């Protein structure tokens, strides 16, 4: 396990350095005629500054970029976490069902549904939702993170946690407001990881269902449900986790688009505004932070998988 941990850490560090290198090369002030030694020294200084959290000063707002990122990123992360939570709650049962009944009408129906849902552009999906559910019935708010009248203090940046800093009387109405605001963007954003999860889990479950130990379990008098819960799920789910960790990148990208649609005050809107204002320092800083976040998520998911799934560990040791 330690061996694996070190190898994954290596991957993390090297990828981080490569991302930094790319950001460094595309700096507008970058001078290509530097001598190699000086160039390397510049690069290390750049990496060091990034590690310390010094991402430069935004030319538009005049504030440190890191501060801005920290202000906007939690809103996006909150959205992504909610989307992943929804996708697990919805996707795991559906994917398992589709895998168990792959050859039956139910499996084919789920398969077709997944394909259709996956091919809908994620920025289009909010529009019919808004039109039908929201403007006609007024069930859920369609813009912002919470009611404009509310004043939620920024402690963690996650509105769901920040409401606990409010006085008792305001806490639960504020929580209600936060939750009702996140429903629509959360559902729309969860489409991407859900379809991905369902697709992977279907294949993985169908593969496990073919295995001898599932057939052997049937001869021990276990019912189909108990076989699926006890043997199939915990062999089918862990192998697809790293792939889902990788999905974090595309979810984050989609979240940025949705932030424009739902007027969500997250890092996507901030980044797109920075692009409008040609604020290169902010763009670069935002890109670095997001890229680092994505690879960290991937590595953490991978390590988590190795921790909970012995077969993954075996692959690691077999490679030695």
């Amino acid at each position, binding site marked *: 396990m330690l061996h694996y941990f070190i190898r994954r850490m290596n991957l993390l560090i090297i990828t981080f350095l490569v991302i930094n290198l790319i950001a460094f090369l595309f700096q507008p002030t970058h001078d290509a005629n530097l001598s190699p030694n000086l160039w390397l020294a510049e690069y290390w200084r750049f990496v060091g500054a990034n590690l310390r959290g010094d991402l430069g000063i935004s030319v538009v707002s005049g504030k440190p970029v890191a501060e801005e990122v920290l202000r906007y990123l939690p809103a996006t992360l909150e959205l992504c976490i909610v989307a992943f939570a929804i996708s697990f709650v919805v996707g795991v049962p559906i994917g398992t069902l589709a895998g168990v009944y792959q050859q039956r009408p139910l499996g084919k129906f789920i398969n077709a549904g997944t394909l259709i849902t996956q091919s809908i552009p994620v920025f289009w999906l909010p529009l019919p939702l808004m039109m039908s559910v929201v403007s006609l019935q007024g069930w859920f708010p369609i813009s912002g993170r919470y009611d404009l009248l509310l004043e939620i203090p920024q402690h963690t940046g996650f509105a769901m946690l920040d409401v606990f800093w409010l006085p008792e009387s305001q806490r639960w109405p504020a929580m209600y407001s936060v939750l009702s605001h996140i429903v629509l963007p959360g559902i729309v954003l969860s489409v991407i990881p859900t379809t991905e999860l369902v697709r992977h889990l279907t294949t993985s479950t169908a593969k496990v269902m073919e295995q001898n*130990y599932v057939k052997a379990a049937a*001869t*021990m*008098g276990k019912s189909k449900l108990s076989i699926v819960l006890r043997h199939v799920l915990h062999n089918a789910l862990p192998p697809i986790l790293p792939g889902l960790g990788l999905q974090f990148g595309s979810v984050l990208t989609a979240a940025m688009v949705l932030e424009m649609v739902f007027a969500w005050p997250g890092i996507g809107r901030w980044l797109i505004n920075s692009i409008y204002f040609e604020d290169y320092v902010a763009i670069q800083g935002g890109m670095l932070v997001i890229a680092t976040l994505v690879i960290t998520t991937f590595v953490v998911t991978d390590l988590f998988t190795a921790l909970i799934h012995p*077969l993954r560990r075996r692959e690691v040791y077999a490679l030695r």
Partner: protein
Amino acid sequence: MALIDIRNLTIEIDTPTGTVKAVDKVSLTLAEGEIKALVGESGSGKSLIAKALLGVTKPSWRVRADRMRLGDQDLLSLSPSQRRKILKNDIAMIFQEPSSCLDPSVEVGKQIEQAIPLSKVKGGFWRRFQWRKRQAEALLHKVGIKDHRAVMQSFPYELSDGLCQKVMIAMAIASQPKVLVADEPTTAMEATTANQILRLLHKLNKLNNTAILLITHDVHTLADLADTISVIYCGHIVESGRYDQVLGQPYHPYTGALLDAMPTHNRDLEKKAKLPTLPGAIPALQHLPIGCRLGPRCPKAQRECVVQPQLKKFKGHLYACHHPNNFQQKENG
């Protein structure tokens, strides 16, 4: 009374090219404490019989039988949940490739503990965990694993095939079943391990009076294990009888050919001569010959063989052949 009593079991399988009869009117009985061997080539339907007996069939199979009983229970009229209860308590099965039959991501110890039915727990519920663990250890000792701690903590991929098979047997006998179905339990094991497994099965049979249905393609493995032997060819029982009857004086030409193909049974073979085998190969289920299914390959086939021979009985020795081997001289003297 026979413990397992199967009469005229027929299994039809729907395939894209039509329905095929994989098992045709097979009758089997298994007495309490008996070891019965079911011998046949691959594709002859041995495993299908076992699966039909256990009730783990696929939707594309049609299983019919005049009678299929375990003790005094009619297996065919039971609901799926009653069937599962029987599987839990009375019948157990072990497989070939045992390491693939254990859940790869659960420790072996836990799997054995899960196989021990809670109904067998003595004492209060607070003792369950300890009791189950100790019971699992005892089971491992019973199947000849001394180092129970290491085995219980390992995952199946860390154990050898022989050890895995022993674990499978431990799980199978956890509920003290009346019948153990062993589906080619020693395939792909080296001779010493295979011997250990077979000795273990023998011991279980003698100590617990567990009846064993041993399915195999290798006449060697059952050499001094089986009480009775049934030889199956293309879904037909061709010969059935006591061990010494079938191996000592095979009536059916197919049994004779099986024995002849074993190097130890024909020591008078010339140097570098080919082992005697039947011409041709086992026919595909879609293209079965009419009449005796061995017909086209049989060295003694004659005109009558286009009529399917019925099972005939001679001194408790069943055979299905119009022109049995070793028979003429017997009748005459």
